[in-house]
Structure formats: C-alpha cells, structure tokens
C-alpha cells in the first residue's frame, strides 16, 4: 500500500471515530431521558394497580370483558422495535422472541401491530397480516398514539377477534443488559400488572429503590365497583402499553450507545495500527534511500 493511501485511510478512520463517538454521546443522553420518563410514569401505574388490587377483594374481576380468559386460538402480537439499526442485536432479539411466541399459531390466526419499522419489515416479508403500523422515530412517546392503539386492541379483544394479545419488546435491565421479552397484555391480569410495575425499576443505579405497596384497606367506593373498574381497566391497558414502549426505547438507546462505544474503540485501534504501518513504511523508505546514497558514494570512492 502506498503511503498516500494509508494516510487517507487513517483520516477516514478518524472521521468515523468522531461520528460514532458523537452518536454514543447522543444515545447516552436519550437513554437517560427515557429512563426518567419511565420513572415519572411509575406512580400512575403503581396507584392504578393498587386500586385494582384492593377492589379485586370486593368486586368480581372476571366479569370485566378485558380480563376474561378464553381458550386461545387467535392471537394478536404487538411488536415494538426501533426504526433504525446500528443498535447491536436489539431488534433481531425482539423479532426472534416474537417469532417464537407465535409459532404455535398458523399465520392466519395471527394479527400484528407493528410499532417501529424493523419488526414491520420482517413480518410483512413473511406474509403476516399487519393491522396497524406506527413509526418509531420520535424520542418522546405520544400518549394519544398509545391510547388509540390501546383502544383498537381492546375493542377487537372484546369483539373476540383475538383471544390473547401479546407484546414483544426489549426489557431494559441496565445499560448493558436488555432482555427481549414477550408479555401478555390481554386478558389483563393482576399478576401481569404487578410484574410490569416491578419491571419499571432498573436492576441497579439511580432509580432502583422501590417502596413497598401499602397493605389493602376496606373502601367505600363511589359510584360503585363496576363503574370504577370500567374506567380503570381500559386505562391500565394503555398504561401497560406505554411502559412497554418506554422500556423498548430505553433499550434501543442503550443498545445503540454500547454498539457505538464498541465502534469508537475499534476505530481508534484501527487508526493506531494504520499509523504504525505508515511510520514503518516511511522509515523503510528513508533507510533505503540513505543506504542507496551511501552505496553510491562507496562505489564512486573505490
């Protein structure tokens, strides 16, 4: 390789390094932001769960259409992926988990809701019916979009278009650990929501402490149990979806951050090696020229 080529290659590698480092920093900020949003939403989820848990003592939850368990023959899957790549194995993990979850069902019994392009592309290519698609471009999660999605899913579930609704997403454990998970959204269950509230807390770090839920008390309920539940249960579907999405976003940003960090480290290493090679070749050239001059003089002297 000529010296000039190596020099331009070093320059190019250094440019790449700058880009990946910038992307790493941006992802770090976004990750922190999503994490704090997820925690800001925690009191709502916790309180809603607590009310539901306490009402479940006096009211019969199985009458709630959104909590009715039916034998499962038709299923809907909400898949939460990112729109863009460069995030390591994040999307392929989620897609794999999703594909595994729906293997017991024939393709005709599965309805997909795709939030994010990667999941949509994968399942569209394989001939699944995709009922709705959403772009996962913005960093903020828009509640109106989530509520619309939750309403559609709930309506179809009550109409028995599906017997079960699953969500495939990436569960944010820590910056270095995201676990592709599949959770059941409908029929809604107390245990499911409890798990969700627990999951909002990262394994360790700034927000990992969690206060215990208060012991249940007896209540007077206005106007009556049924009406309160009628308000509460559909909201819980939206809350669950909202949190799944926040988890997915936090995972996306941290996965990208780690991927970009690896890329930055690698590009620095490559630049270093190329510089060494450059110096070696340059030195070899100089040595050769010097020995040629010396050799020429020797020849003249004798």
């Amino acid at each position, binding site marked *: 390789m000529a010296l000039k080529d190596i020099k331009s290659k070093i320059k190019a590698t250094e440019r790449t390094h700058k880009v990946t480092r910038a992307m790493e920093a941006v992802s770090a900020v976004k990750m922190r932001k999503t994490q704090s*949003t997820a925690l*800001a*939403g925690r*009191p709502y989820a916790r*309180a809603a769960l607590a009310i539901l848990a306490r009402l479940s003592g006096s009211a019969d939850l199985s009458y709630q259409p959104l909590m009715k368990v039916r034998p499962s023959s038709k299923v809907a899957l909400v898949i939460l992926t990112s729109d863009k790549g460069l995030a390591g194995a994040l999307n392929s993990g989620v897609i794999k988990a999703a594909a595994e979850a729906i293997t017991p069902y024939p393709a005709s019994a599965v309805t997909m809701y795709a939030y994010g392009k990667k999941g949509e592309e994968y399942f569209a290519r394989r001939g699944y019916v995709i009922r709705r698609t959403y772009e996962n471009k913005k960093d903020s*999660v828009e509640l109106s979009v989530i509520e619309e999605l939750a309403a559609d899913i709930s309506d179809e579930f009550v109409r028995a278009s599906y017997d079960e609704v699953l969500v495939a997403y990436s569960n944010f454990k820590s910056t270095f650990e995201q676990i592709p998970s599949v959770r059941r959204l409908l029929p809604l269950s107390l245990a499911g929501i409890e798990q969700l509230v627990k999951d909002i807390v990262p394994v360790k770090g700034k927000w990992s402490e969690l206060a215990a839920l208060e012991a249940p*008390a007896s209540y007077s309920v*206005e106007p009556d149990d049924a009406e309160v539940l009628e308000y*509460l249960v559909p909201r819980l579907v939206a809350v669950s979806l*909202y949190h799944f999405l926040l988890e997915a976003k936090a995972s996306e940003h941290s996965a990208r951050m780690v991927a970009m960090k690896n890329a930055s480290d690698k590009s620095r290493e490559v630049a270093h090696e190329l510089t060494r090679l450059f110096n070696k070749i340059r030195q070899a050239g100089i040595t050769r020229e010097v020995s040629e001059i010396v050799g020429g003089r020797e020849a003249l002297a004798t």
Partner: protein
Amino acid sequence: MKTFHLTVARIGENLFDGEAVAATLPGREGVFQILAEHEALVSELSLGEVRVTAVGNRTYRFEILRGGIAEVSRNQTTILL
C-alpha cells in the same frame, strides 16, 4: 394543621407529590373535599378541576380532561387524571 400525603399523576407525568392540607375534587355525585384522616375511599371523578391546598397555603389547580379516579387510604391520597 394536619396534613396528608397527596399524589396527583397523569400517565407519564407526576403533577403533584407532597404534603397537602386539602383537596377539592369533582365526584360523580358532586364536589367533595378531602382533608387529613378522611375515610378510605375510591371515587370516580367527573370533568372539572382538582384544587389542592398544599402546606404553606400554596394552591394548585389541575384540569380533568378525560375523567379520573381518586383513592384515599390512611392519609395517603392518590388522584389519577
């Protein structure tokens, strides 16, 4: 003056979290007020606004746009909008 712990939250947003003296809420059967030591209660809220008097006589108002729910238990009150 006796106070109670009050949390007012929307999905994805915590509006108020702290000690309060009184909260006035629009219930289904009319406006009612919660003070410290209120009996345990779950109530659906109708459209209107929540008025909170916090410690130090500061007042807050929150609009209820799509209904809400209030839960009172042992000096801990949670309002979900």
